[in-house]
């Protein structure tokens, strides 16, 4: 019996990483990008949701629990975006460090002001988020704010590298600020955009481009024929662009594109798994280009 216990301890000691880096688990690849950009070599980052999956509907896989069990810090999007799976994964991980309210829990939504807050908590209005729209990860300015807050948190978890975290977050903020005006100029005069879901609202607000509609009749409900007809009726003889994500079905956007003579562009909403700050900036470039594409 003692041998078994001793063996177990040896095994656990072997498997515990010797490096003093902060083990960060990010819920989505955008949050992983922030952790990597701010944490630099002082953190190791694991991502739970792959970029090509809809973060609303995931399954709490056992490997998520493995990652969370060993994590020092969980970086989540928050505002109930991951409510279908992250609470179950946290519960299954039984890691007291990363419970909400602890130093190991960081939710980006809690660091910024959200748009579309205070909607009625009524599910007959679709998959609503009464606490606000959680898809702020396409808003570079808000992401820079989250980066600075994350630097402060990482600094609290790893005080010797506090200044390095702060410096990297400041550099990311500066890079965003440097591009912000150029992005806005580029999109100036863009007639408008139709998104599939309300996940594009932040970037439209950031660029000052009007959102002309959504393909979903209600958040989370796939496009219906009557809703598409209404959109066509309302938007015909106007200009704009249709934008949808890699995990959205093509049929609706293509129908609208054909009927209105607009361009329909499919873009990933999440950055790739190994993204850094530079990847994120060119990701935003892509979106800005697509949104302003209709102007040319």
């Amino acid at each position, binding site marked *: 019996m003692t041998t078994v216990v001793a063996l177990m301890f040896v095994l656990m000691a072997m498997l515990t990483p010797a490096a003093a880096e902060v083990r960060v688990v990010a819920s989505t690849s955008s949050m992983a990008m922030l952790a990597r950009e701010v944490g630099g070599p002082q953190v190791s980052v694991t991502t739970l949701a792959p970029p090509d999956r809809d973060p609303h*509907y995931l399954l*709490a896989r056992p490997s998520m629990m*493995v990652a969370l069990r060993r994590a020092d810090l969980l970086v989540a999007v928050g505002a109930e975006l991951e409510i279908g799976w992250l609470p179950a994964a946290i519960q299954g991980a039984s890691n007291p460090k990363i419970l909400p309210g602890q130093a190991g829990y960081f939710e980006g939504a809690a660091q910024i002001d959200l748009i579309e807050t205070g909607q009625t908590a009524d*599910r007959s209005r679709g998959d609503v988020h009464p606490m606000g729209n959680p898809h702020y990860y396409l808003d570079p300015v808000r992401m820079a704010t989250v980066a600075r807050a994350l630097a402060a948190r990482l600094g609290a978890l790893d005080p010797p590298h506090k200044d390095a975290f702060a410096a990297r977050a400041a550099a990311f903020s500066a890079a965003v600020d440097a591009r912000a005006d150029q992005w806005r100029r580029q999109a100036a005069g863009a007639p408008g955009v139709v998104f599939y879901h309300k996940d594009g609202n932040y970037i439209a607000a950031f660029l000052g481009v009007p959102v002309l509609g959504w393909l979903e009749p209600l958040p989370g409900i796939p496009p219906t024929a009557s809703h598409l007809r209404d959109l066509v009726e309302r938007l015909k003889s106007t200009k704009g662009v249709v934008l949808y994500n890699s*995990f959205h079905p093509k049929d609706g956007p293509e129908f609208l594109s054909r009927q209105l003579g607009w361009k329909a562009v499919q873009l990933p909403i999440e950055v790739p798994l190994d993204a850094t700050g530079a990847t994120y900036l060119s990701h935003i470039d892509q979106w800005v280009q697509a949104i302003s594409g209709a102007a040319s």
Partner: protein
Amino acid sequence: MARDAGVRVTVCTLAWCLIALTLVEARPIRGRTPADIERRRAEIVDRLAAIDLELSAAADRLTGIPARMADAEGDARAALEKEQRSLLARRGALLDEQATLQTEQAELALVRTRTATGPLQPTDPQGLSPLDLGAQTGQVSSGQSFNPAISVIPDIAYYNDDVAGEAFDVVEEADGFGADHHDGDSGGHGHGALERGFNLREMELAFSGAVDPYFDVWATLAVGEDGLEAEEVYVQTRKFLPGVQLRVGRFFSGVGHINKQHPHQWDFVDQALPMQALFGGTLVDTGLQVTWLPSLPLYTLFGLEALQGDNERLSHDASDVHPDLFQEAPGPRLFTGFLKVSPDIGFAHALQGGVSFGRSRRHQEVVEGVDGAIDESLEGETWFLGTDWVWRYDSARPLGRGDLTVQGEYLYRKKDLAVGPGPGPMPPGTPVVSAQDGLYAQAVYGIASRWTLAGRVDVIGLTNRVETGGIVSEYERTRRYTAALTFNPTEFSRVRVQYENGRAWNDGRSVPFQQVFVQFQMSLGVHGAHRF
């Protein structure tokens, strides 16, 4: 006698208390209604203000008199002296009145009237006014904000079969398995038999939330035909030790894969046959569970449970129903253990395998004859062994299209019993040993966004042997094939059509049956996310 004296003393004490109370209440009021008191208070305030004015005017005049007297002569001086005397007398009277009024005001301040909420109106109930406390009496409160997450899950089913509504009994009494008996409630949670036609199968009420930094509570109540039943009610630790969770209460055992799922998580309307036949539905019991998730790169979960043993098909104390046949078997009677392992095979796939074991150190059951009379009483030990496998594929296409889940479980149960005292023909001590098993395999495929098609094969009795005093009886297998088409408008609602085709053996006779279900399942409110 002593009791009478006691009563008398009590009555006298009560009477005295009443009288004393009346006196205390009556004293400051002295026959006046609160309205009178309010009025008197206002009068006093007004009068005191008037006295103040008069006193200050008198004081001014008195201050001026000495200077005027110095210039005055004869009659004028006498008039001034007279005025001074009368002013001083008036001042004395005013001061006396002021003192009296102030005393009365202080007395009245102790009387309960409605001054805290404004002047008393003639229609206000008298004598019910709160004491003036001089500041806001409201409470800074979060009101109902500490409510737990609450959800209501109605489960409505239309049902029909081609064996006169007996399909559930046909399976329940399958040869070899029907030897179990049903005194009182079914031990397991049999979300079983439906009537032909419409059924409100159950309505689940689920509450969950954190009690404090240390504990979470989950309570799932099922409102069914038998009234309100605690399906699961347990306390779970939040941060006991890293990786370790303790659970105390009544809960679905962690053995196997499907056993810990509530009916609203099932991919079919009904429970898999092996659980139905060997656990009588779902293994749910009261006790303690410890799980440990070591910090390993491979998902490895160890679990141990000590359960009271309240399952008729596995671990049961029948002494309360048949005190003449059995002695009480104190709990916990049932002990289980399980291990789950899941390798990380990427974002698109998830695989989990598990083994489970359970042993009941005491199990009591009775065998009833055809007429319902008790034939034999049996008592002994039971154990079971199971394995469960799940593979899930997430296709990354919208709303579940192309997703595939394949799962299967095998369960083997052995009962090592012996005949006890009873009216039956077998001599006490005769061994009755039964060995039975069952398995199911199922697949669920997302044929379109929001639509799934599921198929399931159930077999029980691959091993189906009962050995009574050295004589072996072998029984046939029962099979069931199920297909289900499910539409999930959102993740909160579900409509399902299910068809089953099976063949059970009853008393050596083959009974084929078909079943049809239409199910409506809704999840209203805030319901926690489900684990894998």
